[in-house]
């Protein structure tokens, strides 16, 4: 088994294989990691209702097996749940993985003891939006939903009666439904930065739906997969080239869609930028939620953005936001959390991205993709300048 290899795998355990998505490879792998002591803890997405799952930390393999993924899970701020150095494995969408890597750069997570099992992601949906969409567009009772998937540009809901209801994502998103805005223009669908990249894209033939396509990206990736195989928890077979090609094709298609969304949402601001941003932030109530959820912010309660800024400032804009802008310019991964939690509905991710994009391009730096030091903190690139 080598870095770069691609396999299709599935859980040997009947129950996991049938319950877990795509043959339950990931679930089985995580459980095995716990059982064999490769890790002390696993982060699983505890499902609290059809449309919401929250990450919880567990050291109980049974809880891992019981949990199943969800399209609506929020990006994971690992350091909020774990002490540095904990041996942990977590399932991670690309943004989760990038968040984790950024935290590792800030010494909040020990990358060497953290196994990131990446999951392909075509985007996530906000529970509230999803419900509204089901009621108004699909004309379905949210409580009747049994499952969902994205296929061929369509968002498909399966109701408990087994019926499938499909609508084109573009149409949905035209009307402001569908995936989170940040997901719509996110161009990373395959978690190449994680230790393993898992998903159902590229699983074809009679394995379709019964197996998970897994690409090995790191030594750690080999470790956790091999561990599961040795434990007899999973079986794998080399992925065939046709499968690889299809996977790449799907990825390519998604990237095109993302590029289009980028054009749409991040088109240059018309008129005065200052007015644009002042209006955008006018309703800020200084709750601090955006910072609290930010996965690339390592600071605690005390931070430069909060310490030197106060609700009592008589400023036209809040120093808090301006400092956040600077700090995020190289580091924002566009995960969408700040927008999600903003009580006055400021599209913060959108704003941060407007500041971050040009900087990340100038420094040819994409946060969360590897352990490169963020330019703002970088010293080595200075030396080049000398």
């Amino acid at each position, binding site marked *: 088994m080598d870095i770069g290899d691609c396999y299709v795998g599935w859980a040997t355990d009947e129950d996991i294989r049938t319950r877990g998505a795509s043959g339950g490879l990931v679930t089985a792998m995580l459980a095995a990691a716990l059982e064999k002591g490769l890790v002390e803890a696993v982060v699983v997405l505890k499902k609290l209702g059809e449309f919401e799952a929250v990450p919880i930390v567990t050291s109980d393999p049974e809880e891992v097996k019981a949990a199943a993924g969800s399209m609506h899970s929020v990006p994971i701020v690992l350091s909020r749940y774990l002490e540095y150095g904990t041996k942990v494995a977590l399932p991670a969408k690309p943004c989760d993985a990038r968040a984790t890597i950024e935290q590792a750069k800030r010494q909040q997570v020990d990358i060497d003891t953290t196994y990131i099992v990446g999951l392909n992601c075509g985007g996530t949906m906000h529970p509230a939006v999803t419900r509204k969409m089901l009621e108004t567009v699909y004309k379905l009772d949210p409580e009747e939903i049994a499952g969902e998937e994205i296929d061929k540009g369509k968002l498909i809901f399966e109701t408990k009666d087994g019926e499938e209801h499909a609508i084109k994502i573009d149409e949905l998103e035209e009307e402001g439904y569908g995936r989170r805005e940040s997901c719509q223009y996110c161009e990373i669908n395959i978690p190449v930065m994680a230790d393993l990249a898992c998903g159902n894209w590229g699983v074809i033939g009679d394995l379709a739906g019964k197996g998970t396509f897994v690409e090995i990206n790191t030594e750690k990736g080999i470790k956790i997969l091999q561990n599961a195989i040795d434990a007899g928890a999973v079986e794998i077979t080399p992925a065939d080239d046709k499968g690889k090609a299809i996977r790449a094709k799907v990825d390519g298609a998604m990237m095109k869609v993302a590029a289009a969304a980028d054009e749409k949402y991040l088109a240059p601001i018309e008129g005065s*930028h200052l007015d644009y941003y002042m209006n955008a932030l006018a309703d800020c109530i200084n709750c601090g939620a955006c910072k609290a959820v930010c996965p690339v912010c390592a600071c605690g309660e005390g931070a*430069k953005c909060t310490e030197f800024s106060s609700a009592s400032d008589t400023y*036209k804009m809040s120093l808090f936001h301006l400092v956040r802008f600077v700090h995020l310019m190289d580091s924002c991964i566009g995960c969408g959390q700040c927008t999600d939690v903003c009580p006055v509905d400021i599209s913060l991710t959108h704003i941060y991205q407007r500041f971050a994009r040009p900087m990340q391009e100038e420094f040819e730096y994409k946060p969360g993709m590897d352990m490169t030091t963020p330019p703002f903190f970088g010293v080595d690139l200075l030396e080049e300048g*000398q």
Partner: protein
Amino acid sequence: MAEATATGTTSEEWQPKIVMFCCNWCSYGGADSAGMGRFQQPPTVRVIRVMCSGRMDPVFILNAFLEGADGVIFSGCHIGDCHYVNGNYKATIKYKFLKAMVNELGLEDERLKLDWISASEGERYANVVTEFTEQIKKVGPSPLKPEGVV
């Protein structure tokens, strides 16, 4: 208008207020040399001394703008001459960020300036101040200036 009294000039012409951060070893010395050489310049600049341009925290500059600064200059030793090995290189990176930030924010590009001034460049210091002041007069008072401050 109110700003006229800000710098107490009798002239009706609006005088901007500029915050300038100088490193202790070069630029602050340059400011002193300007004095030694009696190089006259408009009384628009308020100098704040830090030990090294590497100490130049974006928070300071952003705060200066929010306070009402019409322009901000930060200045250090010429590249290669840093008293602290490479503090001014680090300042250069921060400047890149701030410049991009200020531009995206929609503040006029002219309002933020980084310049290397050595302790011996008194005349140059005066020129920098004078030219920057003229530049700011052209763009006018900062749109971020809070009401009522002078």
